[in-house]
């Protein structure tokens, strides 16, 4: 029952390539191939949601959409929760609280499986427009000539593992950070690996509580986060070094629980100097802003971990230099890969869907060729602006909190305390993150 709240799931793993497949072949083949208006390659959270968004779009009622997913169909049942967010530093007492006093929820944590189940059901309801093929992996893409010839098909040709072929006016790559679509079309990807892996697990809390707070503590080895699932269950996302992650996954359950609790509670990384400096600023802030001294809430402690729920995966950053080419668009992790510390990975993917669906809908209503690059670049510009900022900020935070060197710890301690004191700034952050 691993609750995966970051978007590393169900993606089509591309077959290993010796190099990008950039050859442009004239294809005058099988005119009996079905011509789809849109093919979405990759049926994970983002791919399935994209197919759903188009399937329900009013201007796509007479269009044909195909969703290709390498894995089997998944159907399950779970719960959802609301949350607020507490984040603090392991090397000092600095903390920041994002709270919503009014009744609006700041955000929701929904398990991957729950979302997939909902999407699968929605897709079944529009099966006249959206065809979903499970256990189907594209092994080859053939692009139309950039210099169009009169006799060659202007569509993208897709060949599946079982030999079947399709043509499409627009191919959407939603196949994860090792995107086969991106590699096949030859789009450059700026990427580096963090020397970190994330461990996810489902934890049982020591006592039932009104579990609506998400906790994240920045340890020198990486952030550890506890995200609420129910009154007694929380999900763990612990980013740490590869060796430590491997240890955590293989150690026995009691030791694991101890490690988790200690990570949240231990003061071992504090230094007197930083503590004093932090306290000074806190005093200064409380003089200037004597309001609202809320009692400090404490993170819940963990009793046990769900058997077999511990999994690990490597972390890295990735950003495609281009999101679109003629007849191709990348969304989700295929376009951008981010550290889970801000919980924004799949949200950025959903933002991509919203933008691309809007542009495609308008294009369809204008009678345009869906693969035309003119509206695709509109999507690319809109999303690159948003995503680049978020990627850069997340990377910066990750680097900033990966050190225990005093000057940087002092900087971030004061920074965090100051940000905590400036409510309008916090509100801006919350607004941006919950868009």
């Amino acid at each position, binding site marked *: 029952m691993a609750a995966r709240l970051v978007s590393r799931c169900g993606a089509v793993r591309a077959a290993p390539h010796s190099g990008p497949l950039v050859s442009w072949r004239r294809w005058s083949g099988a005119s009996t191939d079905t011509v789809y208006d849109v093919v979405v390659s990759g049926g994970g959270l983002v791919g399935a949601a994209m197919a759903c968004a188009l399937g329900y779009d009013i201007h796509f009622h007479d269009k044909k959409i195909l969703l290709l997913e390498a894995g089997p169909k998944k159907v399950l049942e779970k719960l959802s929760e609301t949350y607020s967010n507490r984040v603090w530093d392991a090397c000092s007492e600095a903390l920041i609280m994002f709270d919503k006093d009014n009744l609006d929820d700041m955000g929701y944590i929904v398990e991957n499986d729950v979302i997939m189940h909902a999407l699968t059901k929605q897709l079944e309801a529009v099966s006249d427009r959206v065809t979903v093929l499970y256990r189907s992996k594209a092994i080859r893409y053939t692009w139309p000539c950039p210099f*169009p010839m009169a006799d060659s098909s202007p569509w993208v040709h897709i060949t599946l593992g079982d030999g079947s072929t399709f043509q499409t006016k627009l191919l959407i790559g939603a196949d994860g950070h090792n995107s086969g679509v991106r590699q096949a079309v030859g789009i450059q990807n700026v990427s580096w690996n963090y020397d970190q892996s994330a461990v996810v697990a489902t934890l049982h809390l020591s006592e039932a509580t009104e579990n609506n707070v998400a906790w994240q503590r920045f340890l020198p080895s990486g952030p550890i986060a506890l995200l609420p699932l129910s009154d007694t269950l929380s999900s763990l996302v612990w980013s740490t070094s590869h060796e430590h992650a491997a240890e955590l996954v293989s150690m026995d359950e009691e030791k694991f629980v101890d490690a988790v609790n200690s990570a949240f509670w231990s003061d071992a990384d504090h230094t007197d100097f930083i503590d004093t400096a932090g306290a000074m600023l806190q005093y200064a802030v409380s003089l200037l802003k004597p309001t609202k001294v809320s009692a400090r809430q404490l993170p819940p402690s963990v009793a046990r971990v769900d058997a077999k729920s511990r999994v690990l995966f490597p972390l890295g950053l990735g950003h495609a230099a281009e999101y679109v080419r003629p007849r191709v668009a990348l969304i989700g992790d295929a376009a951008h890969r981010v550290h889970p510390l801000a919980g924004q990975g799949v949200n950025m993917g959903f933002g991509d869907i919203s933008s691309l669906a809007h542009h495609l809908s308008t294009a369809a209503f204008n009678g345009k060729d869906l693969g035309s690059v003119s509206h695709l670049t509109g999507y690319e510009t809109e999303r690159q602006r948003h995503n680049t900022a978020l990627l850069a900020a997340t990377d910066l935070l990750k680097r900033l909190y990966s050190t225990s060197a005093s000057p940087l710890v002092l900087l971030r301690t004061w920074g965090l305390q100051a940000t905590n004191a400036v409510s309008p700034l916090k509100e801006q952050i919350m607004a941006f993150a919950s868009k």
Partner: protein
Amino acid sequence: MWSGRKLGSSGGWFLRVLGPGGCNTKAARPLISSAVYVKNQLSGTLQIKPGVFNEYRTIWFKSYRTIFSCLNRIKSFRDNLLKTIPNHQPGKPLLGMKILDVGCGGGLLTEPLGRLGASVIGIDPVDENIKTAQCHKSFDPVLDKRIEYRVCSLEEIVEETAETFDAVVASEVVEHVIDLETFLQCCCQVLKPGGSLFITTINKTQLSYALGIVFSEQIASIVPKGTHTWEKFVSPETLESILESNGLSVQTVVGMLYNPFSGYWHWSENTSLNYAAYAVKSRVQEHPASAEFVLKGETEELQANACTNPAVHEKLKK
């Protein structure tokens, strides 16, 4: 002039490939053909003397990529047509409409109309254009069924298609036609009562001479010499008067301006260069040149001649 750049022009122009935004096309290079227009004595319209036709296909196919330049026209046609349909189907808003695209060229306007659900017949006197259009739509099974192309002129099909179309589109055509009156009469004849006519063309002004003939043909060679004849440009007033006298009620006349930086056309109040007219065929069958219409036509001519003397106005009305 700019119509040479517009991709929906009639009568088989070679076209300039638009540079900005055409992602896969290289920097725009004017591709010149040596097309010359020769009057066809029988039909009174134009016939093209073919030039370098083997380049036509490539040009057309590149043009399909940069169709966005026609976007404002398509949106306008669509919106005006939707007003005439009480309940339109989502996804196929123009379903059930029969549209005639006169001077369709490579089908650059025909295809978007087809994608919106209409049944479209595209006609063009140039065989090569129709072949290209035919080829391009053949790859799309949906368009293949909805669109039909024919090599012919409007006059040739007037008899068999009388009162069959819900709408007629004549984009960048009327400035090439010799007998405008006959052409517009034919447009009216093939329209059902209450049907819509969309025309886009170039105004006959000093500005259009300067930009359209002098600059485009002689200086910048955007279009080859002889493509346009300034005398054949039609002013909105003339167009309106002919339309009105043939039983077509002009609903709107609006100017179009091209922004070379964005690559898009925009609507504007200024009709001194390019403009579009939208007219509707009256539902009641009446003879052209009824007294009322003649008077209106005359009044408009006077207005066009900048006669603002209200006394004269009054005198005419009596």
